[in-house]
């Protein structure tokens, strides 16, 4: 039964997307129906996601038996239709399926071809759920690549003035990265020699590749190193890890609000999820051998992202670079190979999903009113002044989001950042101490933005904006609630993921 619901969660958005295609007219009646169908479909998907918890055995560290299924698909190549989730993937599914109804709500007033927009959004949802729930390399890769199609069109059709450049860059960059991943997957398929299991992610775990080597001409290298670094490129582009991050600011700035929210909230986590699900458990030797490189790159992302964010005058760019910085923390936590560090990384994935989504949603709220995103305009005048006097509700939500993003204790990100520091400090003391700079500047750019926009007397232009309306409050409320709740009571989320994390970390303790 659980597996059936998981299938339903996976395919329902896709079916709804197909269902939207029956509306051929763009009459306001139909547009209304389209919106409501999308909303109900995503909301129902979210409820089904919650329902999965009834089949969830929290103490089971590996893939939930009640929530997995395998059906032979293309038997001659050992390709199976394998679905399954554990605590880590459930947390990502939850985040994703929570954000989608919110995104539908925040795109409520979209004017340009709403049918295709909502259909593509629903299609996107299925592909993301697919990435987080498939356990077969072939399926995983398919969903990973399919995800690019709706993203490309969503950015290039509904984006800002420079949308085609950004969409193409995003597409080529991530596509280029995943080609390396494909090579690694094909390598795994041939080298593992595991017969019908050779594309099963779970069966590949357990040091299967420890002694295998691969010959590149006359040069013999351990297969685990070879595959680890190929996968690394594919995942690092997605995270995005320095120096593979430059597609992100462009994509964010050009993307419509809903797409930015999904991009920052969930898509970036696909990269770190790839490390957690594939690279680390399958090649623990390589993960242990190169942990320093991973932590170092994470650290560079943290500090470099923070400095780049400090230089931005466009709200979306600033938040985009803050994502680079915050995802760097995730990599630091992953690279630490410790219980607290890895737990912190998984929590940070979730918490950054919440806080960055909130920030992008708020930028969208403001953009709908002002149609610009400048904090400081190119001619050095302020884009907004005195918002807090004129828009008190908006100010409160913004304060919560900002302080959630900069890791104020009592809000969710603090726990994850603290755990990452705790996990990384022992083996990577110097790097962790340097990471503290990221915490400091993380506060600096966000507060700088807040000060510029919210203090002072409201300008004439600002006075014409209305405060947040009920629809906007409705979709911000669950996120605000979650960041506060998880800040005070992180136990539910931690209990969801900690067994799976422990299971992963065990693979390294024998090595280190």
């Amino acid at each position, binding site marked *: 039964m659980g597996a059936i619901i998981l299938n339903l969660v996976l395919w329902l958005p896709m079916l709804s997307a197909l269902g939207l295609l029956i509306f051929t007219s763009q009459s306001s009646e139909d547009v209304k129906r389209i919106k409501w169908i999308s909303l109900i479909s995503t909301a129902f998907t979210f409820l089904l996601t919650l329902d999965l918890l009834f089949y969830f055995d929290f103490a089971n560290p590996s893939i939930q038996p009640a929530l997995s299924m395998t059906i032979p698909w293309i038997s001659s190549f050992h390709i199976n239709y394998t679905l399954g989730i554990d605590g880590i993937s459930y947390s990502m599914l939850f985040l994703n399926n929570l954000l989608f109804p919110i995104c539908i709500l925040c795109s409520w007033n979209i004017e340009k071809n709403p049918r295709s927009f909502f259909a593509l959004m629903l299609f996107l949802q299925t592909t993301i759920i697919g990435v987080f729930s498939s356990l077969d390399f072939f399926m995983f890769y398919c969903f990973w690549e399919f995800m690019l199609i709706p993203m490309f069109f969503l950015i290039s059709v509904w984006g800002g003035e420079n949308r085609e450049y950004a969409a193409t*860059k995003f597409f*080529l*960059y991530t596509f280029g990265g995943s080609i390396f991943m494909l090579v690694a997957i094909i390598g795994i398929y041939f080298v593992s020699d595991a017969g019908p299991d050779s594309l099963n992610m779970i069966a590949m775990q357990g040091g299967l590749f420890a002694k295998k080597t691969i010959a590149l001409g006359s040069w013999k290298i351990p297969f685990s190193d070879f595959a680890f670094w190929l996968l690394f490129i594919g995942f690092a582009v997605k995270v995005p890890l320095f*120096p593979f991050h*430059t*597609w992100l600011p462009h994509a964010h700035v050009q993307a419509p609000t809903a797409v930015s929210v999904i991009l920052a909230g969930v898509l970036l986590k696909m990269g770190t999820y790839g490390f957690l699900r594939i690279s680390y458990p399958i090649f623990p030797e390589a993960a242990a051998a190169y942990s320093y490189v991973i932590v170092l790159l994470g650290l560079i992302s943290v500090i*470099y992202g923070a*400095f*780049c964010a*400090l*230089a*931005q005058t466009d709200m979306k760019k600033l938040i985009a670079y803050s994502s680079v910085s915050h995802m760097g923390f995730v990599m630091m936590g992953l690279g630490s190979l410790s*219980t*607290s560090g890895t*737990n912190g990384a998984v929590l940070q994935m979730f918490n950054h999903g919440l806080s960055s989504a909130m920030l992008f949603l708020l930028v969208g709220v403001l953009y709908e009113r002002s149609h610009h995103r400048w904090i400081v305009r190119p001619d050095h005048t302020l884009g907004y002044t*005195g918002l*807090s*006097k004129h828009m008190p509700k908006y100010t409160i939500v913004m*304060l919560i989001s900002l*302080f959630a993003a900069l890791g*104020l*204790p*009592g809000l969710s990100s*603090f726990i994850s950042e*603290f*755990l990452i*520091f*705790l996990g990384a*400090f*022992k083996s990577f*003391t*110097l790097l*962790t*101490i340097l990471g*503290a700079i990221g*915490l*400091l*500047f993380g*506060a*600096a750019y966000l*507060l*700088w933005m*807040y*000060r510029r926009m*919210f*203090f*002072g*007397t409201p300008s004439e232009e600002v006075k014409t904006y209305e405060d947040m309306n009920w629809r906007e409050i409705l979709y911000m409320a669950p996120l605000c609630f979650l960041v506060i709740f998880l800040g005070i009571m*992180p*136990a539910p989320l*931690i*209990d969801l993921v*900690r067994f799976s*994390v*422990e299971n992963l970390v065990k693979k390294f303790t024998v090595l280190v």
Partner: protein
Amino acid sequence: MNIGLTEILIVFLSPFIAYIINALAWKKLPRHGDFVSILGIAIPFVIMLGLFFQMLSLSDPNFLFMQSFEWFRLSDNPVDIFKVGIYIDNLAIVMLTMVTGVATLIHIFSSYYMHGDPNYGRFFTYLSLFTGAMIGLVLSQNLLTLFIFWELMGFCSYALIGFYTEKDRAGYASMKAFLTTRVGDVILLLGIVALWIHVGSVSYSDIYQALASGSLNDKHVLGFSLIGFAAFCMICGTIGKSAQFPLQIWLPDAMMGPTPCSALIHAATMVAAGVYLLLRMYPLIHTAHLDLLVAYIGAITAFIAASIALVQKDLKAVLAYSTVSQLGYMVLGIGVAAYNASFMHLITHAIFKACLFLSAGSVIHSLHDDETGDGVQELARMGGLRKKLPLTHLAMLLATLAISGVPFFSGFVSKDRILGDALFWSQGINGGSFLYLIPTILGFISAVLTPFYMFRMMILAFYGETRDKKLYDHCHHEHFAWNSNLPLLILGFLSLGVFFSGSLTGQSWGVILPSISEWFSKLMVPVFGSINMATATTEVLEHAQHSAHHTATLVSLALAATGIGFAFLFYFWKIFSSENLSKSLHGIYNFLSEKWYLDKILMTMTYKVSRFFYSIAKWFDNVFIDAILVDGSAVLVNLGNIILRYMQSGHIQRYVTVMVVGVVSYLMYLAYFVK
């Protein structure tokens, strides 16, 4: 003593419940919800008062109530279990009584001061969260929860300093306060992490135990000893939060907030938290031998701030610098092993400084400038207010006498003990070497500056003739009102020394409340688990200590008299002219009014350095990575595309040309190079 968990939970939760109620519904509540916040702090105060008197009657210096609960766990390994808990000893009880008491009075005063503000309810909302965070910080059983409340207070101060959002300067001041303190906070966090890794937990009792057992002695962090590293991080936390040199720059700007919130920041919460952390981590600092560093930081802060306060022209600015200076005394006290006196100064200072700030609030509120629509803070426009505001004057005078170190007042008792211990520390323990004398000397110098600038402020504000007739006439004569005057008078009354020492003088004679004689010294002893750090007991040392205290008392009496005397000579009798002095010493005067240029240097440096880094980062990102590497690779592909397109054009002539050129070159290659 019977402490129930329920009582403590009520103390802890009431302000938070008040916060939640007000945050959600202050606009809909009658009186915009001020009574909710006042109740939310008054109830804990009543409970704490009960506990406080129980503590006095029990009179057990080693009283400890500790309880912890699991917060969450990462695995079943004890290192991975995160706990929250309560740690109540005499120190915490006194601290909480002070915090809740002072905060209650500030809440009550706020209902007068903030009356009519459009965001009246929001102000109370933040006040509740602020005091709640401070209560949580004091109750914390471990450093992690301490840090959580520590940062939460940082947020509240950010919100309150930036409360008047229309003022751009408020935005600047709040950002500066948050980021400056965050420098210390981030380092503190590293210290907590380091301790956690090696101790296995950060609860106070575990840290004390690990220190006592010596198991940390051979642990290292980056080549430094762990104890030294952790202690240094704790000190940095204090430097940020308690506005010590060189991070003292944020506190004077923090007066951009409404005056009651300044009172809260400067007295009961926020800055007190840093000193409280040092008191809790005292054995760590002592074991790390960083006492001297702490003493220097405190003494330098006390001196610099006192000197800057001499030339301030703004009523609140004088008070702000006096806070920094007095905090310096507390930190100095911790450095010179005056644990007890230092804590006493924290309490006495909280009371008289709250009184001073609230009185200043009362003055500012009474002097309304119709042109700016704001209260007047400049001393230059005051004068003679004694007649208009007699009750405020009385309260402020009491508090000024206390801070100046006049006998019979609380500041005398506590400051004198710090100076006495400092003298004993430099002379008695460390043999009077120059290195150890400097902090003590700086402490004494500040003790003559303090009464001078405080009485200068008093005289300029309350005595003499008014300097702004219109403003003066506009000011209403003060009538007693419970929410404006009562808090001040209570605080002023509590600035008497007798409540802290049981005797009028703070010395062995003049005892008038024998039942509580020296309760403070008896009950607040530096005992941490199995570490007893109470001071030396040999007869010789005791004698030396006595004589040091004796000397210090006489010296500080003389200094206070000198300071007050000069203030009267300059500003009351005007025998010396302060204008002439500032003209003839204009170099020093400018140096002081520019705050030793510290503010400018630090801020410019921060701007320059961060601008340097972010410009580089921006350039590197846009030009090197994005344009050259990423788009450059696209250009390369494009180039290949052009070449191939040219070759694959479909024109047969072009193919033939390429073929001929190819074949000819190959033949030439064969002919010339292949022998």
